[in-house]
């Protein structure tokens, strides 16, 4: 007899202050998602089907009929495929070395792995030019001339950028495999190679799949490396750029953007599925696998891992080094003259980027926190679609989002035009560009919060506001801090999303680096890159420090 009684009391409860607050918590971030993600995406789609005098598919037929588009598509897919294969292979070697082999110096590898994430993607390309370009250190030392602009250079640059992602994803999958499983196999008489084939590989399967899709996506959507070292090898990302900036053809740019969106959406959807499959294998109270030393395996793995890491370090290190060289490659004495940057607005864009990144990080973290708090109070039927929407932005390449923003906010049709050309809009696009990663990370934090804590606070008389401030925020503080710094660091280095939104008066660091390089001032570009990396490193340091401080506050003085 489950007759639903809608008593007057129940209706009153709907107007309860807490419910109102929960609605606001969800409503504001949701409004942001609609205004700054859904709406621009609709606009970009509409523009792709806008033809003279109405709507139609003429833009598509024109794009699909052009050989340039097909060449760029083919190049993108080829580049994506090759980079993916290479980075997953190399990434697996390092991840396996880290989690399944015993050798010293792993902290070094862990450190190196995060390096590429600290720099704009075009730094890999810059580094390659200094190493393998016509005046590169290696080319000159060996006396060989490698055609670095084009497929080879882009493949290496993209791979070096993607490998760390692969290592992290595959590593996360390997960590999940319990030590007891290996002990059981050992007792049953399985040889190490059998254990690898029967336990390690199957466990890493979804991690590998996942890593492949992530590498593929970041490769085909990356703009920085392609712009610097791609040369004549046009890919979809550079194609959009040349349509929009070169030919001022926004509708055609929109079409190419939609075409670029297709593979990334598909790849992202599969990746999410793979992730779900992987997580089901997780068990509570798992025992960490501690490999014992096996000379042959471990020496080879250590050598390979360190070799790959050396390449990553070399490419980034050479940029820092080159920024101090007086006149590359003729006068190799050190000086700081390249740091005297006056072109392209000098350092003003660096300061502006820091301000923008702080805005994106603070506003974004607050918005995500509110969303997380509110979603916990929403019924499943409401929460689920919102969660899906919040996880969507990751499927949209930065170039496409940037294009969508210029089409939306550079139009005087709505009051949103007021945002155009402001630092706030760049902060907003950075937040929504990385919305998914921040949201998913924070949701993980929220999932660890036992509902009983909030219920206990509620029974003691705490309302939603109090519970959020006294109980929830302190509990997920470490997650909030890491989301804040994640948004900050990404905003510092991102290029693809903001390239369309910068104006001569308002530029950001990554764009300045590209402009300097375009102008042939490669050493100054290197110097500027070094400054950006320094800022991001400081941010990373600040994050680690605040984590340590927070860890201490929770376990203060006195007994253990």
């Amino acid at each position: 007899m489950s007759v639903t009684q809608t008593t007057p009391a129940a209706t009153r409860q709907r107007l309860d202050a807490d419910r109102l607050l929960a609605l606001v918590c969800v409503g504001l971030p949701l409004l942001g998602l609609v205004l700054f993600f859904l709406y621009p995406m609709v606009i970009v789609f509409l523009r792709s089907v806008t033809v003279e005098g109405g709507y139609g598919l003429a833009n598509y037929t024109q794009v699909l009929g052009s050989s340039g588009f097909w060449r760029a598509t083919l190049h993108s897919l080829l580049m994506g495929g090759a980079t993916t294969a290479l980075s997953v292979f190399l990434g697996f070697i390092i991840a396996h070395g880290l989690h399944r082999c015993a050798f010293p110096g792993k902290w070094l590898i862990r450190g190196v792995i995060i390096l590429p994430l600290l720099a704009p993607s075009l730094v890999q390309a810059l580094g390659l030019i200094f190493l393998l370009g016509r005046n590169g250190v290696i080319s000159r030392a060996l006396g060989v001339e490698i055609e670095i602009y084009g497929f080879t250079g882009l493949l290496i640059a993209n791979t070096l950028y993607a490998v760390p992602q692969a290592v992290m994803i595959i590593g996360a999958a390997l960590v999940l495999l319990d030590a007891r499983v290996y002990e059981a196999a050992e007792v049953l008489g399985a040889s190490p190679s059998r254990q690898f084939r029967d336990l390690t590989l199957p466990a890493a399967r979804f991690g590998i799949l996942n890593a492949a899709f992530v590498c593929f996506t970041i490769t085909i959507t990356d703009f920085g490396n392609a712009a610097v070292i791609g040369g004549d090898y046009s890919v979809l990302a550079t194609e959009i750029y040349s349509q929009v900036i070169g030919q001022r053809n926004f509708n055609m740019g929109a079409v190419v953007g939609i075409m670029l969106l297709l593979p990334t959406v598909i790849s992202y959807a599969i990746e999410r599925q793979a992730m779900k499959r992987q997580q089901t294998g997780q068990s509570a109270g798992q025992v960490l696998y501690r490999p014992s030393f096996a000379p042959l395996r471990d020496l080879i793995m250590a050598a390979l891992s360190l070799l790959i890491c050396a390449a990553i370090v070399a490419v980034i290190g050479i940029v820092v080094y080159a920024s101090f060289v007086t006149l590359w490659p003729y006068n190799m004495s050190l000086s700081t003259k390249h740091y005297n940057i006056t072109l392209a607005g000098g350092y003003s864009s660096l300061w502006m980027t820091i301000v923008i990144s702080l805005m994106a990080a603070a506003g974004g973290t607050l918005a995500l926190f509110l969303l997380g708090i509110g979603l916990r109070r929403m019924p499943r039927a409401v929460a689920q679609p919102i969660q899906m929407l919040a996880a969507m932005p990751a499927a949209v390449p930065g170039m496409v989002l940037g294009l969508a923003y210029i089409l939306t906010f550079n139009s005087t049709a709505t009051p949103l035009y007021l945002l155009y050309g402001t630092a706030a809009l760049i902060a907003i696009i950075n937040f929504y560009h990385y919305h998914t990663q921040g949201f998913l990370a924070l949701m993980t934090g929220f999932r660890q919060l036992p509902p009983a804590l909030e219920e206990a606070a509620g029974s003691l008389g705490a309302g939603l506001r109090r519970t959020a401030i006294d109980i929830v925020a302190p509990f997920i503080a470490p997650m909030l801090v890491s989301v804040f710094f994640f948004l900050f660091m990404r905003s510092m280095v991102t290029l693809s999303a903001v390239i369309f939104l910068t104006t001569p008066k308002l530029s950001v660091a990554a764009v300045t680096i590209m402009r300097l390089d375009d102008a042939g001032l490669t050493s100054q570009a290197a110097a500027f890159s070094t400054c950006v990396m320094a800022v991001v490193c400081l941010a990373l340091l600040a994050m680690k420090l605040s984590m340590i401080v927070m860890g201490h506050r929770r376990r203060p003085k006195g007994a253990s």
Partner: protein
Amino acid sequence: MYLTVRDATKTFGTFTALDRVSIEIERGEFVCLLGPSGCGKTTLLRLIAGLAEPDGGEILLEGESLSNLPARKRGFGIVFQSYSLFPNMTVAENIGYGLKIRGTARSEMSQRVSELLDLVKLPHVADNFPGQLSGGQQQRIALARAIAVDPRVLLLDEPLSALDAKVRTELRAEIRHVQRSLGIPTLMVTHDQEEALALADKIICMNHGIVVQAGTPEDLYHRPKTRFVAEFMGISNLLSCDAIRRAFPHLLTMRPEGADDSLVACIRPEQIDVTPAQDGNATVRAISFLGNLRRLEVDSVAGPLVVETHGTNSCREGDCVSLGIAPEACTWLADDIARPMAETPA
């Protein structure tokens, strides 16, 4: 009546967690909600706490409906199985949190906190963080936090289930003591019948979302009304009318009216006397030594029986014995085991 739940109903999708459940708690009374997992006991507690909304029915405190009061305004105290102390606050801050929300003055608050720490026998942990305490200590603090605000009702959701056996017995006595001395009406959810027997003034036994039987611990143990209650409350020998007729015909005198297959006889293991006898018609199949008692598995004319004896019983495995059961030791009850299963889809 202090707290009344009338016809509370709650469904989750197609699953009926509570089907028109009515219970009552008197002032100062300690009531246990007892039942297997999934019987609806925790759902009922959450409805009373205001952590979930009923689909139907009403909950009254001193005659006034609670349905328009959110949990934070009910003034109840709750203790969860998982301790659920706020990890970012010290023990003193945890206990004082409810008082802080009510705007209690600082001096009064610290006074109250130290009183409560004394009450739960942990006077020296005020400045510790929950992570530094053992499970049992954390649960004592959770109890102190719940009673700090002088709750109108104390709700305990399996508070002892996460603790190990010895701590559990200690804390059980502690809860009993605190509840008695403060006289707070208390509702505790548990699946442990021993816990319920030891603590409760009244036990409400639930199964499949309905109340199967409510009464004093003695009532439920000695006078179960259904097979479910008899089986859930300790060990019992449940015998069909046929078996009784064959083996212990003298017990039939107390048999109520009713068809043979609707009735079952319940005889507790300690109410059967075993005497070694050459001509006995029962055999001891196995003996387990349990310290204060010995549990015998006996094959009898009525089928296998469990018998418990204290002290000086010299039976050994394989011995022939005769069995004695007093007529009043046998309780006749309804054989209900199939009924609720058929009514409620799983």
